[in-house]
């Protein structure tokens, strides 16, 4: 049981600055997910916590002890690797016992610990087998077991589910979640899969190019992304982005070029006042684009045509064309008979709209979602 605290942690490989000034505090028994595209520095950050990579700058503190110069074995951590990393020449039992034997735990206690872990994970019948005789899911359970028997202060997970097929991955995700309730331990989990991040994390850390983009609970990040990148990374189907221009018209501000002009309400106009004449980007979640008129105040109504539909059974995805642009709408009633070429009117509640500055990671300018926008943003040129 321990708190993990990263302060201004940096990693440089020669000229490559892989991790920039990461500040992160993982509370005791909290489950934090680091997520981002490959090469964003999330695995490097995790390996620095584990002690498998040296730290170029900053401090890492586990349970109130600075561990910068401690070797991995003295950090009281356990780690699950992407390819399980089971010792191929040992039986499952010896794999589980390895760490405890290294710590000179009496053999009787080792047996007790292994029995406990094996019953949690349901791997008792596998004890005499070698890793090569196990399926992917079984190997993954053994790898988890190797962590559990050690009773470490911190669990580290490096993309543990990415080698499993889709069905097994979903199942193991649920098992991991159940495991958390039985073995509550501070955990840091690295993944590139946004679904894993959303479902497993108490909090999510989104990273890109070695920089933390945003830290928050899954819903905070989903509803109030700090920048365009976070908006695009979380959610499936992905957020729509529409380039528009802020224009002064009739004494107020409008966003032009997305079908008709969108007249901005006062609060939004105030937020965008500094961007008159500039390009900005509207971010729209597909499920917030509704077919039809919409009812409430503050709704944008746009006319467009349907390009194509994708029937998923529970819902339809509809690709719409408005003027020159296309956007994807989700959550459409599957029984609606829609065809490519049909004209359609659809509506977007203005309080669901995000506005970002131009650019791939343009910071959010306006977001009416619930929750605070936490945006410790810096840009690297």
């Amino acid at each position, binding site marked *: 049981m321990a708190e993990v605290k990263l302060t201004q942690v940096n990693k440089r490989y020669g000229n490559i600055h892989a991790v920039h000034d990461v500040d992160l505090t993982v509370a005791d028994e909290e489950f934090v997910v680091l997520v981002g595209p490959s090469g964003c520095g999330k695995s490097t950050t995790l390996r620095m916590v584990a002690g*498998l990579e040296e730290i170029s700058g900053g401090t890492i503190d586990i349970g109130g002890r600075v561990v910068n110069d401690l070797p991995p*074995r003295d950090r009281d951590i356990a780690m699950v690797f992407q*390819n399980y*990393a089971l*010792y191929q020449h040992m039986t499952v039992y010896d794999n589980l016992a390895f760490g405890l034997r290294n710590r000179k735990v009496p053999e009787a206690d080792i047996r007790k610990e292994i029995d406990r872990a094996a019953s949690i994970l349901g791997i008792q019948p596998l004890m005499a087998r070698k890793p090569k005789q196990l399926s992917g899911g079984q190997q993954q359970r053994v790898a988890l077991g190797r962590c559990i028997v050690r009773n470490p202060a911190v669990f580290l997970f490096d993309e543990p589910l990415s080698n499993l097929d889709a069905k097994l991955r979903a199942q193991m995700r649920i098992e991991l979640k159940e495991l958390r309730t039985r073995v509550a331990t501070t955990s840091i989990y690295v993944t590139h899969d946004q679904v894993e991040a959303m479902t497993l994390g108490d909090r999510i850390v989104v990273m890109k190019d070695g920089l933390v983009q945003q830290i928050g609970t899954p819903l905070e990040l989903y509803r109030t992304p700090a920048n365009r990148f976070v908006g695009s990374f979380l959610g499936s189907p992905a957020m729509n982005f529409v380039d528009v221009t802020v224009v002064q018209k009739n004494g107020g501000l409008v966003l032009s070029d997305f079908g008709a002009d969108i007249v901005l309400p006062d609060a939004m106009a105030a937020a965008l006042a500094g961007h008159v004449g500039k390009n900005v980007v509207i971010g729209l979640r597909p499920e917030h684009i509704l077919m039809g008129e919409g009812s409430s105040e503050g709704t944008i109504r746009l006319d467009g045509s349907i390009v194509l539909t994708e029937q998923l059974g529970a819902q339809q995805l509809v690709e719409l064309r408005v003027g020159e642009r296309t956007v994807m709408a989700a959550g459409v009633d599957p029984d609606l008979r829609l065809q490519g070429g049909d004209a359609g009117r659809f509506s977007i509640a203005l309080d669901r709209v995000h506005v970002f500055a131009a650019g791939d990671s343009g910071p959010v300018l306006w977001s009416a979602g619930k929750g605070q926008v936490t945006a410790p943003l810096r840009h690297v040129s």
Partner: protein
Amino acid sequence: MSVATDTGYTPPKRGSFLDALAPGGKRAFFLLSVLGVLLIFAFPVFWLVLTSMRPAWGVYYVHRGLEFTLGNYLEVLEQEVVVHAFFNSFVIATLSTFFSLTVTVTSGYMLSRFTGKLANAWFGTIYIFRTIPYITWVLPLYFVTQWWGIFDTYLGLLLPHIAVHICFFSWLMKGFFDGIDPSMESAALIDGCTRWGAFLRVALPSALPGIAALSILCWLWTWNEFLFALILTSHNTPMITVVMAQFVSELGTEWNLMSATAVMAMVPALIVAIFGQKYVVRGLKV
């Protein structure tokens, strides 16, 4: 997933030469090819064994007459130098295998896992030495062993052999370690091992099939080696490959004796082929 299901169209199978043959023909073709290969490789050995059992006058007419004898073997084994040479070859092959493997395993591991100046320098060194033709090593080594006073001793033969093995086999060893997942060692580090502990207790046992294969290859290489044995030894430490060649004399070549020695020298190789084959195949697959 089948390509054919969507369109109902099955692309015609691309016929290879073997597919065109009838099932029986395929089998016959296979047997004939094996026979052909066997003929090329096994016939000389067969001829060698026949020659070794012929009396001296019969060696040029091995295909004529049926007089066979084991006398050649006895005659050869009565020569002290031959027995001595067998012993020397065995000792040199075993020792050089042992010593070169201890270096090769660690050096292959370093090449596989570490980057940096030291690893690069080592990599460059053995790369350069590997590109030098084997035969050009011999003359300088002759002078060096003379100068150090270890010419015609075990040491004078062992050191060059070990050096060559390190250059040649570090690469193979690197390949074995490349095939072993490094995160296994990371897991060991977290599980309480030091860096050396992770190497010795996790990486090394996983590489054992490869190491076994390499030691077999290494031993056979030294056993069969001729050039170093010829140049770097004299009467004190005769090696079997050299002694075998010394049945050529001014009075002619004693083919029958030479063949008998050669057949006996083949025995270790055969033993290895029969019992060690499993390890060599498994090891080279790692």
